[in-house]
């Protein structure tokens, strides 16, 4: 009843192709941004921010990166963790070499290193497709993981083989390192993620997004209408890895504070892939929903027994979490292959005609 676009006529093609063509959606996004930018930092507890919201945002960005490659361009990658790692280690080295430069600038710059790695490991995509390509990206994952362990230069010859984030300030407020408050780091992450999501939405609505989807759906026909496959695929790899790289840099600098090579191993790649699949391939919103579900579910499962005063061992909870996640993934693959984003769309469609069934 409140979600009707009746009477909202578009008189220009620009308005028709706007990001949020419906007024209610515009109001909705303003509300969400208001809550996320203002209410949450003021009211939420440090625990909620640091162990729920920040990681969800970081993983959402990585999921967007993978979604651009897998969901939009149809190139299945298992190297997400590696590309995130390239971003993280690049940011660490940049912070070492250029201590005077603003850390946010460095985090964005580290994305370019990940993009370069993405282009390099995306080269096989010009010759191979499908499963074979995913195996090639798997190789890149193992190679990069190996680099993060075996090249001590990357972690400044630290004896613990981990990277530790130095304290850096933005407008005089510490945003990285042990003295930065969770709320500050959260706002920086939120700002970066919001802007990069907006940029990604611009890309996929325009010429480049259409060429990506064309390559995904029918590469032969795409080539025939003048799309150069190698350019398109490599651009997808570059942009995707850029997003993953920035996410990796944020993961270390704005969330964990320190990291070892394990943070960027094959498990990380799979985790992001699950987020994309459950959230919805080919949907930016799905990337957020998937990240929220996969990151939020274990936390919810851990707190539920507390409500009922049940004492379940931590190990049991862990097992239940794994089983639930596995069941969810299978359920989604069977029942709704297009993921949470599709459910959301169906819900919106129902809301539009409510209270009538159709």
């Amino acid at each position, binding site marked *: 009843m409140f979600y009707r676009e009746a009477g909202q006529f578009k008189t220009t093609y620009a308005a028709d192709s706007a990001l949020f063509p419906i007024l209610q959606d515009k109001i909705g996004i303003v509300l969400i941004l208001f809550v996320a930018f203002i209410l949450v930092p003021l009211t939420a507890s440090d625990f909620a921010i640091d162990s729920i919201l920040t990681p969800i945002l970081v993983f959402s960005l990585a999921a967007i990166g993978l979604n651009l490659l897998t969901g939009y361009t149809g190139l299945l990658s298992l190297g997400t963790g590696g590309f995130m790692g390239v971003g993280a280690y690049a940011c660490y080295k940049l912070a070492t070499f250029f201590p005077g430069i603003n850390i946010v600038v460095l985090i964005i710059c580290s994305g370019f290193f990940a993009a370069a790695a993405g282009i390099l490991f995306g080269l096989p995509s010009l010759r191979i497709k499908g499963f074979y390509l995913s195996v090639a990206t798997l190789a890149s994952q193992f190679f990069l993981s190996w680099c993060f362990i075996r090249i001590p230069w990357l972690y400044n010859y630290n004896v613990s083989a981990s990277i530790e984030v130095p304290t850096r300030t933005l407008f005089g407020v510490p945003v990285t390192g042990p003295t930065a408050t969770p709320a500050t780091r959260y706002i920086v992450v939120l700002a970066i993620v919001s802007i990069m999501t907006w940029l990604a939405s611009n890309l996929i609505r325009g*010429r480049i997004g259409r*060429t990506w*989807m064309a390559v995904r759906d029918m590469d032969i026909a795409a*080539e025939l*209408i003048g799309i150069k496959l190698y350019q398109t695929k490599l651009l997808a790899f570059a942009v995707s890895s850029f997003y993953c790289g920035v996410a990796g840099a944020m993961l270390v600098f704005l969330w964990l504070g320190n990291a070892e090579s394990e943070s960027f191993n094959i498990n990380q790649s799979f985790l992001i892939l699950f987020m994309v699949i459950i959230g919805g391939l080919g949907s930016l919103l799905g990337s957020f929903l998937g990240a929220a579900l996969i990151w939020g579910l274990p936390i919810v499962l851990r707190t539920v027994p507390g409500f009922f005063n049940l004492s379940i061992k931590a190990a049991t909870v862990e097992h239940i979490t794994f089983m639930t996640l596995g069941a969810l993934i299978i359920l989604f693959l069977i029942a709704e292959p297009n993921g949470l984003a599709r459910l959301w769309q169906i819900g919106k469609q129902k809301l539009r005609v409510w209270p009538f069934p159709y």
Partner: protein
Amino acid sequence: MRAPSGPEIAVGDVLLSVENVSLSFGGVKAVTDVSFDIRKGEIRAIIGPNGAGKTSMLNVINGFYHPQQGRITFKGKARGHMRPYDAAYGGIARTFQNVALFRGMTALDNVMTGRSLKMRRGFLWQLLRHGPALAEEVEHRHRVEEIIDFLKIQDIRRVPVGRLPYGLQKRVELGRALAMEPELLLLDEPMAGMNIEEKEDMSRFILDVNDYYGTTIALIEHDMGVVMDLSDRVVVLDHGIKIADGTPDDVKKDQAVIDAYLGVAH
């Protein structure tokens, strides 16, 4: 929509000529020593029994296959080794025997994708989607909407093409090819699997495209009624060899063609 760009060629000039083209896959000869030409503004049909090498011929013109022998001249220039996107830039568009649409995209996006090679704004503008990039997008949307009106597919603009019935998919595919503003449009069995009404609609669209946009059309079709009514000239292939070339009436009377289609008494 503008008339096709590029150097003006008087009506009736040769737009594309195929000279002594032979194509084989290992020992299989798909096309043997075939020559014909396509004149500016005409509707040229390529017919023949199954396996005659018709689609192979289109693929050669398209740049998908590279003939071992022979020469192809397009707009007066001999073509070297080329990729399909070179053909697209040169002004050749194509539809497929089995619909080759981008199934996950809407009809509108499919036709918009046809304009990719006309869009110039680079990556950074695309990221911002403001100013020149948005203006370009809107300008091309206007062109695409004209095509959508022309093909009468306004009501399915927002529908993912995978969900459309076959006849409409064929129409969207024609729209995508038209969006490229081609000089030469290759149609591979545009009416395969259609019922009589859909065939009539599609025939009308093909004639209109030829009339209204002045696009030269080369089409492969099995429905002889359609071929004889639509085309200006017909080339007949059988087993990769050209057996006849001429107006529909001439071809109909040709003994070799009758033999190829009906068989020869032994």
